[in-house]
């Protein structure tokens, strides 16, 4: 019985059933792209990603929010990590915060980056440590293409 309970608890839920929700958006002028968090799995890297295209030097407004919509329970000691990097080697922006996601708890951020050099960037928001009590991590990813 114990093994059954453990295995059920570790089944990755469908995204629609998961009440730990994550949203990542990036906006340039009137164009906005949004990525929703998904459980981290090998399939995540194969999923098509939103692409925000912009010109070098323009300001990009980036927002994210994470909500634990469960009515009870806590997901403790979750690191929320965001990285905007160029060709996976050159971080333009990076942030991290640690908090306990109590039931109905929410965290968010809102910031602007500017003057990106032309090239391809990846914007990734992810949890680290949620899997200990929640069963899996979440991530939301999008591409940012900066033209000269």
């Amino acid at each position, binding site marked *: 019985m114990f093994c059954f309970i453990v295995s059920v608890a570790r089944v990755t839920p469908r995204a629609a059933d998961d009440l730990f929700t994550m949203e990542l958006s990036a906006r340039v002028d009137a164009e906005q792209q949004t990525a929703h968090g998904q459980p981290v799995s090998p399939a995540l890297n194969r999923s098509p990603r939103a692409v925000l295209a912009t010109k070098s030097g323009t300001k990009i407004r980036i927002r994210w929010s994470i909500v634990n919509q469960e009515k009870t329970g806590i997901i403790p000691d979750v*690191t*929320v*990590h965001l*990285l905007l990097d160029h060709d996976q080697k050159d*971080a*333009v*922006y*990076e*942030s*991290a*915060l*640690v*908090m*306990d*996601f*109590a039931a109905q*708890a*929410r*965290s*968010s*951020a*809102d*910031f*602007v*980056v*500017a*003057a990106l050099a032309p090239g391809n960037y990846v914007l*990734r928001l*992810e949890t*680290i440590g949620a899997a200990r009590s929640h069963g899996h991590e979440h991530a939301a990813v999008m591409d940012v293409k900066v033209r000269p």
Partner: protein
Amino acid sequence: MRRAILAAAALALMAPELAHAEHFDIKLVAAGPDGVAQQAFADQTPPEGGLNPRPVLKVRAGDEITMQFIMTNVYPHGTAANAGVHYYVVRERDLGQKAVPAVSEEAIVDGTFTFALKPQARVGARQRFMIRQPGNYLLRVESQRTQRDHEHFSAIDLQIQ
């Protein structure tokens, strides 16, 4: 795995030296080209502008500047459910001025976090940016809505030549 290491490294590398403040420990660093850098620690407001003089980072217009901060809640009691952190770079009239300029759309850097602030909670960010117009600028990171009678901040002046 790489990203987990990055996140851990981001917080560890920015790890503050403890016991600079009663509620918040803050370490703020601004670095220009050629390894020139200034760092500042926690101050508090009121009074506006705090008590400590601010270090000044001198760089040229168009130089790349990297700012990095980490704030640690060293207050051991209670949680503020809707606390915040605001960080920004805005133009200022004079180096060292006590008045804090308003943050507008013209800010060079402007970012916020909202989160549940528990004991030992930690938040940090690192951002690269450029300032093309010579002048005096204020780099500041501050706590918000911590449900105490004062807030903490750390600040560095940027003199763009």
